[in-house]
């Protein structure tokens, strides 16, 4: 404790970005609420436009807010203690993301190990099986739901396996980029980070291909195809969104590195992006095991 240095802690003066962000979130929430309600009621409305405007405003807010922070950081206003605050904040944010995915993994495991066998009469649920859907047999992946929707299961070989290799490799290259940054080897840093971004983009493209394959007439694996399709698309979809976000972070880092930002000692933003990247990678490993293989 006592060895820690207590420099003066930078407390920013007023900022208008948070209230811009609050208005943006309101537009997103209210717009999205109207949008999905109107779709369900099959009427037109302004919800979609409000949603898009909200997203645009959020992007504007993030750019403005972060450039303030970058300028403060580059002009040396931040202390070691501030850096720690950012790091801890980012770690707890990632932890909250882990818990978000945990809810969906929980749903997957609950359906597989409990609700589907129960619907087939397991345990003391013989009457549930006999009365509700006597034809139903429990399988996983659930290719035929109790009400008779049929689908096919996505195999783990092929695209998913390639994607796993891509993402695992990208985690390694991201680590090499970090090592290069700490050694102040800028050319290597650019090369490794660039490679990581390429791998990320290939992953995302293959993921789109996989979805197209799933939605083809051949596979008929839709978001609405019962609990298997639900968990498949929700888990891989949210993961894909997080990969996209992580990829954008890495691209921003790449351009900041081109502009000469970051030193071996001071590179919180790069560290955060790379943590985030490792996080989406670990989530994918769980996805690959629980969604694709098992």
């Amino acid at each position, binding site marked *: 404790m006592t060895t820690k240095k207590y420099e003066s802690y930078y407390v920013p003066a007023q900022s208008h970005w948070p209230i811009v962000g609050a208005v943006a979130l309101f537009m997103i929430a209210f717009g999205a*609420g109207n949008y999905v309600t109107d779709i369900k009621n099959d009427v037109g409305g302004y919800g979609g436009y409000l949603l898009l405007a909200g997203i645009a405003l959020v992007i504007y807010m993030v750019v403005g807010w972060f450039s303030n922070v970058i300028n403060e950081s580059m002009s040396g206003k931040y202390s070691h203690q501030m850096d720690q605050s950012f790091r801890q904040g980012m770690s*707890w944010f990632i932890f*909250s993301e882990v818990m978000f995915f945990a*809810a969906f993994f929980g749903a997957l495991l*609950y359906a597989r190990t409990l609700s589907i066998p129960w619907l087939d009469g397991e345990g003391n649920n013989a009457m549930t099986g006999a009365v509700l859907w006597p034809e139903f047999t429990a399988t996983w992946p659930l290719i035929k739901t109790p009400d008779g929707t049929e689908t096919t299961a996505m195999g783990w070989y092929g695209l998913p396996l390639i994607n796993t290799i891509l993402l695992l490799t990208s985690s390694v290259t991201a680590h090499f980029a970090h090592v290069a940054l700490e050694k102040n080897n800028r050319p290597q840093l650019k090369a490794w980070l660039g490679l990581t971004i390429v791998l990320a983009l290939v992953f995302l493209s293959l993921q789109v291909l996989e979805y197209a394959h799933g939605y083809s007439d051949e596979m008929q694996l839709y978001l609405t195809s019962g*609990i298997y399709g639900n968990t498949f698309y929700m888990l891989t979809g949210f993961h894909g969104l997080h990969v996209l976000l992580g990829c954008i972070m890495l691209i921003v880092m790449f351009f900041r590195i081109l502009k000469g930002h970051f030193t071996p000692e001071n590179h919180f933003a790069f560290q955060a992006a790379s943590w985030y990247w490792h996080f989406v990678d670990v989530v994918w490993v769980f996805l690959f095991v629980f969604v694709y293989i098992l």
Partner: protein
Amino acid sequence: MTTETVNESLDESHDDEHHDHKMTGIKRWLYTTNHKDIGTLYLWFSFIMFLTGGALAMVIRMELFQPGLQIVEPDFFNQLTTVHGLIMVFGAIMPAFTGFANWLIPMMIGAPDMALPRMNNWSFWILPFAFAILIGSFFMESGAPNFGWTFYAPLSTTYSNGSTAFFVFAVHIMGISSIMGAINIVVTIMNLRAPGMTYMKMPLFVWTFFITAYLLIAVMPVLAGVVTMVLTDTYFGTSFFDAAGGGDPVMFQHIFWFFGHPEVYIMILPAFGIVSTIIPAFSRKQLFGYTSMVYATASIAFLSFIVWAHHMFTTGMPLAGELFFMYATMLIAVPTGVKVFNWVATMWRGSMTFEVPMLFSIAFVILFTIGGFSGLMLALTPVDFQYHDTYFVVAHFHYVLVTGSLFSIYAGAYYWLPKWTGHMYNDSLAKWHFWCSLISVNLLFFPMHFLGLAGMPRRIPDYALQFADFNKWVSIGGFAFGLSQLIFLAVVIKCIKGGDKAPAKPWDGAEGLEWTVASPAPYHTFSTPPKID
């Protein structure tokens, strides 16, 4: 005055573009990064929400004053109970505690501000928008959510009145707000403590908020997940909670209560922290068993993750599950008992005085314990089969949330009002507030135990004739309690406008760094950290 000197010493560390760092007018509040401003915003917002949610409760009690339907339609009654619950949980109690955290944690640990001040502003300002959407849904075509604050599927999915989307997105924003607020609290406590303030030297108040913040970070994302599943089930054809597609409505309850049970501790652990600060101050003794208090708080937090299905005894689960959740729940009585014992032991042979914060704290200890006992009764699986979804449950959670959480918030508000405003509150008016609240709240909630034991179901706008007498008294208690809260509003406004000048430390038994600075606390405190021995 101290304000000037502190401000001057801080100027050099400030952004040069903004010379005037204490703006006036609306911009001060919209753009602020100051933990005290943001704390004030949280506290006022929560009080406005409390009065709004209370107004809904008044309508509920009017309807229930007599048997039969007289004032509202059953569907609107459902909307009232739903939005009352959501407002009180997410709009009144939680933001009030975040307001306390913002105002006090930096001062208690000798920090210049919260660790991430801009994010702090954002955490607050998204909340009014979320509640604008939620409350605004009353005026939409669909009406407000009518499926209970617990939004059980399929009430919120298949049988929704069409308000689900607005509900879901409003809850998303509330969740984002809570997560960011909690991250800020954790980082501030981990990183900004003054030199020498080790974890075990932190005030217990800080400890309870620290542990609460962890609970929030762990479970608010799960709430986000479950509302997302409700959204896709309702609007995008998924079947997470529909057996026809291989899902299960019971799964909804499991995921929801995995969030929901830690959530109830999120609303009571900070109350423990406030009461543990006030009782020693007015007993003029150290808190009895500080270390055991810390461990008890941590144990309660841990146990809160493994007891969720005690809300679901009648829903149906394997016998082993029922037994596990019954025993795990009863285990919580142990650390909670440690706390109650410690509070009583702190008062034992103390030179006690009974200022208003202390009155609310003592009422808290007694009435919260009553809520704890009815909780123990509800934890017994076979007994719960009888009590489930009756007014006994309503009585139980209102004892822990109103005479528990809310009373602690009042205790804390009276205790720190001199620090916040620089004036002493009007003592006789405050005592009126306390005694009116105490009597009316018991008239309001105590008979509900008997109604529940006799079988009156909750969330129903009508009831059998046999329940009429008790309901009449409950409603009278409710109106009296509601009106009594206006006294508090008067006390606070009077206190802000004037009153006796408060010294830096108005309570002679009070301890902590916040009493070492002037009253009202200067706009910036501890720009350089104090040294703690």
